[in-house]
């Protein structure tokens, strides 16, 4: 582990995929679909988005042609790797009333499917760490999440092409991947540099018998990643905005943003750290059977704050405030850091282009942020 990079030629990516498949993994990787770069089952390295990059701005995403020798010249797609571990919708249990009248419950745990995801970014890994804290490290680990998580092999790719919406350097989560991967790749003009971050990753590299990379090449690659971080223009004024936000619950900016916000929940749905979900029973005509599901929810829905007959956060002002104060404030109390890893997705995929860094900047400027 550490600085023991190996060299993987560009044309040898298929060898890596084959080795993962031999180990029983289904490979999942980025590819073009519907005008975006999305994660899906990856059969051949040729299906990677060679020669494509993403142009991102508030409420705006377009693909553009880029260097055809690069498969990872883009920043990030509409969805992080979150759905691989936290399913958008899943059955938690089924029930059946037996002939003797007793009710039997069966947990419907996901199949133990080994999945190797290729192309995770530093912001994704930091977010996965937070999701692990939420789903696995509390008093009651979530067995559904756990079943997927323990079968996940992560091939991260250090980011050299941040979008205009990215600010992982500001949150301290990227663009270099420093932890939470099995393998990490640098994409360079002369192929890939591979480093292991786990025992499984080390074993994988050993099985591929790859030549060692020179220190100079590793240094050059890391310089390129650092430069990518320096090109980022967005940012948050501090890595801990908890006190600022909670001291400004009546700031007029909440009204200002509420006039623009659709309360659509897209920001929470694309955020790689949001974990909220709702549960309900699925109507089945056979009265003896029951099925209990959970699905992604959002603090922008009425159900999210429905309590004993009333909706606590009945308007958009309160909902947007919940999103921002939880994400950048409450997470410090719950998980010891901010819930934002700087991926910029909530900015790009907001249909009206609301930018949390701008909202924070306005509250910071007028709400006592300057000390």
């Amino acid at each position, binding site marked *: 582990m550490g600085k023991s990079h190996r060299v993987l030629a560009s044309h040898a990516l298929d060898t890596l995929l084959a080795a993962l498949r031999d180990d029983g993994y289904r490979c999942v990787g980025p590819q073009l679909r519907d005008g975006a770069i999305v994660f899906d089952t990856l059969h051949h390295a040729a299906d990677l988005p060679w020669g494509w990059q993403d142009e991102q701005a508030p409420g705006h995403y377009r693909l553009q042609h880029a260097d055809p020798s690069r498969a990872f010249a883009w920043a990030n797609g509409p*969805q992080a790797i979150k759905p691989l571990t936290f399913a*958008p919708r899943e059955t938690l249990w089924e029930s059946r009333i037996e002939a003797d009248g007793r009710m039997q419950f069966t947990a419907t745990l996901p199949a133990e499917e080994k999945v190797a995801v290729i192309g995770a970014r530093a912001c994704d890994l930091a977010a996965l760490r937070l999701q692990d804290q939420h789903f696995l490290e509390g008093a009651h680990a979530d067995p559904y999440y756990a079943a997927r998580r323990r079968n996940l092999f992560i091939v991260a790719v250090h980011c050299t092409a941040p979008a205009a919406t990215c600010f992982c350097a500001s949150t301290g989560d990227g663009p270099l991947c420093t932890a939470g991967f099995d393998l990490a790749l640098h994409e360079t003009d002369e192929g890939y540099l591979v480093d292991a971050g786990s025992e499984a990753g080390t074993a994988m590299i050993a099985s591929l018998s790859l030549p060692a990379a020179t220190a100079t090449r590793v240094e050059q690659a890391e310089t390129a990643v650092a430069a990518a971080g320096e090109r980022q223009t967005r940012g948050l004024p501090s890595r801990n905005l908890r006190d600022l936000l909670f001291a400004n619950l009546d700031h007029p900016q909440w009204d200002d943003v509420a006039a623009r916000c659709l309360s659509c*929940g897209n920001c929470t*749905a694309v955020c790689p750290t949001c974990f909220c979900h709702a549960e309900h029973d699925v109507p089945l005509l056979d009265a003896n059977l029951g099925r209990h599901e959970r699905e992604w929810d959002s603090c922008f829905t*009425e159900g999210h704050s429905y309590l004993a007959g009333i909706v606590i956060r009945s308007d958009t002002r309160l909902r947007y405030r919940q999103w921002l104060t939880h994400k950048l404030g409450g997470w410090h109390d719950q998980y010891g850091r901010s819930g934002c890893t700087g991926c910029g997705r909530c900015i790009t995929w907001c*249909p*009206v282009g609301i930018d949390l860094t701008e909202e924070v900047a306005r509250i910071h400027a007028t709400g006592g942020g300057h000390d």
Partner: protein
Amino acid sequence: MGFDYSGFAGRRPRVAVHKFSSCDGCQLAFLNAGEALLAVSELVEFVHFAEAGPVDPDAPADIAFIEGSVSTPEERERLDHIRAHTGYLISIGACATSGGLQALRNLYADGVDTWRQAVYASPEYVASLDTATPVAEHVKVDLEIWGCPVNTAQVVGVLHDLLHGVQPTQSRDKVCLECKRQNAVCVMVAKGMPCMGPVTQTGCGAICPRYGRDCYACYGPAETVNTDAQGNRLIELGLQPADVTRRFHFINSHAPAFRAAGNKHRSE
């Protein structure tokens, strides 16, 4: 008259499916159930459902579904009669919940006369009210199921709830959240299409964005909608004000939130 949700004491509830001014498409939500319809017909007794067989519009029913808007004098009277003979009344589809497409005539002072003359060879045979209106504007409705058309999961789900003594509900969240759960790529952000998902009620499974087209708001307004922000965004995406009006007025023009939003850009 309060409805007793405690079930039907072992007997099959009587169910009626009534048609008013509509295209008949929402009734297909039952027929499309396929095998499940056989299961349903063992659990309930269809006393009136012209599209499926039994015809007895005057039969008293425990549960009645109404498709279609109130747009003729005869319908206005028939509705009172049905309400008086029904336990739990459910309006289904855009026509019954918001007046539907035909409610476009409500936006014009002389809409009915002008269009009746333009469309029919012998307009004197057509008896219409000046407006096409939702069922709930006339009688008490116990549940509304929005959509154009509604789908099988919705109607069967509601029947299931009532059979089990549960008060049925319908999610009024926006289409967007379901669009994300389905892993669709947002057509508004990635293609600049004038998607109505951010103001439209869920229930369809985000079908349109999943097939690469923009939601056209057939399920009506969601809860807590910001039609001003939506309208402004459509203009930014290149729509003319008249097109924004059409986006809001297309199917559910009589729903207050959409009517006002469309009129705002109409008068500008």
